[in-house]
Structures are given as structure tokens and as C-alpha cells.
């Protein structure tokens, strides 16, 4: 039974107001709230519009294709090729997802299907903590732990024993590079992915799992034949959300990725992702013509890529999780 401690009608203020006045304030609030709810939609439109407006000058000079596929970045000579930055972004994000997704999926399955009550209760704050740590702190950690590890241990090991492996062959002697960025990113996006996957897996009706278990399957078989097929689209959406997080991460990546404007060919190469490009060059952009427009184009490219990932994932997730309401 529900007990109301203080019913709104009994409060003194509303008792004094006439019904008409209360109705009026209700209508007024409805109108005001509607105006507030326009703010986020307007914000999204204004951001997109301003970015397009600002990147227009450079798109008039060079075709979009030239900009996207250009290999050379020399603002002083008016050369603005985004290809090194786009490939850098893709390398770092893909590598981070490859490192992060398998443990995340396994952890989410473990938490939702196997783990006891107490472990689940510890896990929630643990994930919140991981998600709360600022990206610059991840960057500091990457510089202190991951970069030296790659430089001194992994790098020399690879140079010694696996010098010609296609994805690892590199003449970058430092630890700053794609792998360092990917490891830091992988840990940063893990809490997001796990939280989404866990929520989706918990959303499956108990009866389905129990029916499967009652037929004598092991838990793993239930996961394999009942849980995974039910949540597959949700898993992909969760990974998509993680990917969009990774694509846009600036500070932590910038601090460990090396920031060299070339097209990378190996995990140990340095790279220069789009967010790092924007963050690093803002200071000097005013002095060179079209430079600010080029940086805004970088922001626009980044935003369009992320929007595609994000809208798709959000729509899929709304559908997957929205079932409980209908």
C-alpha cells in the first residue's frame, strides 16, 4: 500500500488559491516548460549550423573530397589535408574497441548472470568511479604507466623478436603512439559499455532464462541461446556509444598519442586524431588565413561521424529498452 505523507491538496498555499488560478499557473508552467524543452533541440541545431557556416570558406576553395583525402597538412602553404587525422582517429578508436569490447561483454554477462548480490553491489560504484575519473587524469596515468611500458618493455620485445609483424612494425622509438592511446581509451570507455550492456541484459524477462534453465541447459548455454540473441542489437548499440565516446575523447588521447601528422601504418606509430588537432592548434589559428575554417571543418567532420554512431545507437537503445514501457 502506498501512504501519502503530505498530500498536495492539504498544503496551505494551494488551499488559498482558487481553482482558476491553479489552472492558470498549470497552463503557464506547461508553456514555460515547453520553451525550456526547445533549448536542447535549438542548441543541437545552432551548433551544427555554426560549424557548417564556419567551415564554408574553406569548402569554397577546395572540394570536400580534396579536403577529406588530402595527405598533406601545411597550413602555411594553404594545404589542409585531413586524411592523416581521419585515419589517426579511426586507428585509435578501432584499437581501443578491440581491446575493450571482449572483456566488457564478458564482464557484463558475468555481472548479470553469474555474480552474487554483493559483487553486483560493489560493481556499480566501481564503474561510477571509473566513469567519474577526469580524462586528464587518465592522460597523466597513461604518461606515467602505459607509455614507459610500451617504450621499454613491449617496444623492445617487439623489435627483438617480432621485427617484421605487419601491424606492429614501426620506427617510432617512443612509447607515445596509437597503442598507448588505445589502451587508455579502452579503460575509459569500459564503464560506459559495461553499464549499458548490463542494463540491457538485466532487462530480459526472468521467465525466458528460467524456462531455458528448466530444460537443463547450463548457464552458459542460456546466455548463448537466450540472452545473446535477445540483446544483440543492444550490445551493438552499447558498443556504438562507447565508440562515439572514444572518437571524441580529447585530452587523454592527446597526451599519449604522439601527435604526428602522418598516415599511421602500425599500432606503434604515432598518430594525430581530430580532437587533438583542434585542441593543439587553436592558439595560432588566427594568424593564418583559412586556418580557423579548417579547424572548424575538423570539428564538423568529427561531429558528423559521431552523430551517425550516436543517433543509430540511441535509436536502437530506445527501442530495446523502451519495450518495458509499452
Amino acid at each position, binding site marked *: 500500500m*502506498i501512504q501519502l505523507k503530505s498530500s498536495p491538496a492539504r498544503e496551505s498555499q494551494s488551499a488559498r488559491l482558487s481553482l482558476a488560478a491553479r489552472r492558470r499557473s498549470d497552463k503557464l508552467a506547461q508553456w514555460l516548460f515547453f520553451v525550456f524543452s526547445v*533549448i536542447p533541440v535549438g542548441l543541437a541545431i545552432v551548433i551544427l549550423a*555554426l560549424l557548417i557556416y564556419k567551415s564554408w570558406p574553406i569548402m569554397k576553395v577546395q572540394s570536400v573530397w580534396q579536403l577529406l583525402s588530402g595527405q598533406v597538412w601545411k597550413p602555411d602553404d594553404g594545404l589542409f589535408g585531413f586524411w592523416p587525422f581521419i585515419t589517426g582517429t579511426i586507428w585509435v578508436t578501432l584499437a581501443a574497441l578491440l581491446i575493450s569490447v571482449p572483456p566488457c561483454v564478458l564482464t557484463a554477462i*558475468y555481472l548479470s548472470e553469474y555474480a552474487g548480490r554483493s559483487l553486483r553491489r560493489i560493481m556499480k560504484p566501481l564503474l561510477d568511479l571509473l566513469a567519474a575519473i577526469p580524462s586528464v*587524469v587518465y592522460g*597523466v596515468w597513461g*604518461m606515467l604507466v602505459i607509455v614507459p611500458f610500451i617504450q621499454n618493455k613491449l617496444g623492445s620485445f617487439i623489435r627483438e623478436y617480432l621485427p617484421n609483424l605487419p601491424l606492429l612494425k614501426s620506427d617510432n622509438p617512443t612509447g607515445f603512439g596509437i597503442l598507448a592511446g588505445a589502451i587508455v581509451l579502452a579503460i575509459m570507455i569500459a564503464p560506459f559499455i559495461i553499464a549499458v550492456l548490463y542494463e540491457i541484459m538485466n532487462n530480459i524477462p526472468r521467465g525466458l532464462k528460467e524456462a531455458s534453465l528448466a530444460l537443463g541447459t*547450463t548457464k552458459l548455454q542460456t546466455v548463448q541461446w537466450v540472452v545473446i540473441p535477445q540483446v544483440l542489437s543492444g550490445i551493438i548499440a552499447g558498443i556504438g556509444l562507447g565508440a562515439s565516446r572514444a572518437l571524441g575523447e*580529447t*585530452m587523454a588521447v592527446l597526451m599519449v598519442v604522439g601527435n604526428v601528422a602522418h598516415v599511421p601504418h602500425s599500432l606503434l606509430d604515432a598518430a594525430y586524431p581530430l580532437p587533438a588537432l583542434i585542441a593543439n592548434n587553436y592558439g595560432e589559428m588566427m594568424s593564418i588565413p583559412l586556418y580557423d575554417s579548417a579547424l572548424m571543418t575538423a570539428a564538423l567532420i568529427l561531429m558528423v561521424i559521431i552523430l551517425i554512431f550516436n543517433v543509430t545507437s540511441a535509436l536502437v537503445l530506445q527501442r530495446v529498452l523502451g519495450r518495458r514501457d509499452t
Partner: protein
Amino acid sequence: MKKRWAKRHITEAIFKVLMLISFGFVAGSLALILWTIISRGLPAITWAMLTQAPKGGYYLGKEGGILNAILGSLYMAVGGTLLALIIGLPIALYLETYLRNSPWSRAVRLTLDVLWGIPSIVYGAFGFIFMLSIGMRASMLGGMIVLTLLELPILTRAVDEVIRMLPRDLEQAALALGSTRLEVASRVVTRQMLPGIVTAALLAFGRGIGDAASVLFTAGYTDRIPTSLLRPVASLPLAIYFQLSMPYPEVQKRAYAAALILTIIVLIASFGSRWIASRLSKNVIQ
């Protein structure tokens, strides 16, 4: 038959081990990060760091502290969170008590999800060109507004999700007693959801105070203690970044200390939200 049974259970055992390893991996990396930050930062923290602004030659390893950055970050994040709360709370209440599942509410929710995904560097760049076009310089106000934009979707969606958990009967009981929807929203929903709202606000605060890319161009940086909304202001994430890029080990050590301070603030917000939520939840009807 028996063979198959054995195979099934061996696979099960293998996967269970793999899962435990993954779990240990996630928990272990958190422990490793905290350990690194504490072990490097703690020896470098001094009283002067917390109570003084940088003095001449600070970035060469001389006297001073980062009080300017601590205060600047706190001001901007608190201001940004309050502004985001003022805008975000009505939106969440509107979505849940007035609109429920209409097309407009779905559109707003989707937009908020999309805004949540926009990286902070894009907010920073957007804020910068917007400020340029209205003739505003890098200032505490600019940083605060950009943090508001960054925190708004996080806060609104979190509050929205919390309100959704509210038992429907409660709202219907209030409506049946003759209250208007505004009264339901302001007296019943807000009161019942206070712990959740505080948690959401602290979550957004934590995101705001830790973000560097958005305040990089909009708030600027200065060695002075912040006094005015219209002057540039230092922030902790940028203090960490700038000190770390100095070639002097003395200064780099201070960056570790600053990282520890920032982490502690964020952890206090994170744990504090749990504590407050549990304290406030005594008014909540389950």
C-alpha cells in the same frame, strides 16, 4: 551422453574463468590508476600548493601553488551545474509529467542523447566561435556557460531516468485528489525524486570539473585568483596539462599533485552523491 555433459561443463568452467579474468581486469585497472595517482601525487602535495596562487617563476619550479586553478574550477563547475539544473530540471519534469510518450518527448530525449555524445572539444570550439562572434573574450562566464551546455544533457537525462522510476500510482493518486500537473510535478515528483536529482547534479558536476577540452579556449588561463566573471580563469585540468608539459621535474611533480587534488574532488562528488542519496531517501515512498 556423459561426454557431452562433461564438454558442456568444461566450456562453462572455461568461460567462467574468462569472465572472472575480465572482471579482474576492469577492477584492477581502476586500482592501478588510483594507486599511480596517489603514490605519485601524495608526496608532492604541500600546504602552499593548496593555499597560494602561482608566484613569479612558479613554472620553473619556484614558490607558489595552484589555488587559482582549484578555485577557478570549483566556481565554473558549481555555476555550470546550477545553470544546468535550472534549465534541465523543468525539461525532465515536462518530459515525464506533461508529455509522457509523445513524439515531441521522444525527439527531445533523442536530442539530449545526441548532445550527450557530442565531444567536449566540439562544445569548446563552438563556445569559442560563438563568443568571438558576439565579441566576448575568454572568461569565467564563458567557461561556465560551456560547462552548462556540456552538463545539461547529462543532468537532464539522468533526472529523466530517475523520475521514470517513480511509481505511477503516486502521481495518479495526487491527480485524483484534484492537483494540477504542475502541483504533481513540483510537490510530489520533485520531493520524491530529490535524492535522484542530487545524484544527477553531482554526476554532472564531476563531469564538468574534470573536463579540459571545453574550457581550453573559453575560460583561458591566468595565474591570478579568480575575482570577476568577465576575466579569464584557471582550471585544474589545464593546470595539470600545462605543468606536465614543462621540462622541469619539480613542476611535473606538482602536476601529479594537482591530478590527485582533482581526483579527490571528483571522488568526493561521486561518494557524496551516494551518501546524500541515502540520507534523503528517507522521505521517499517505495
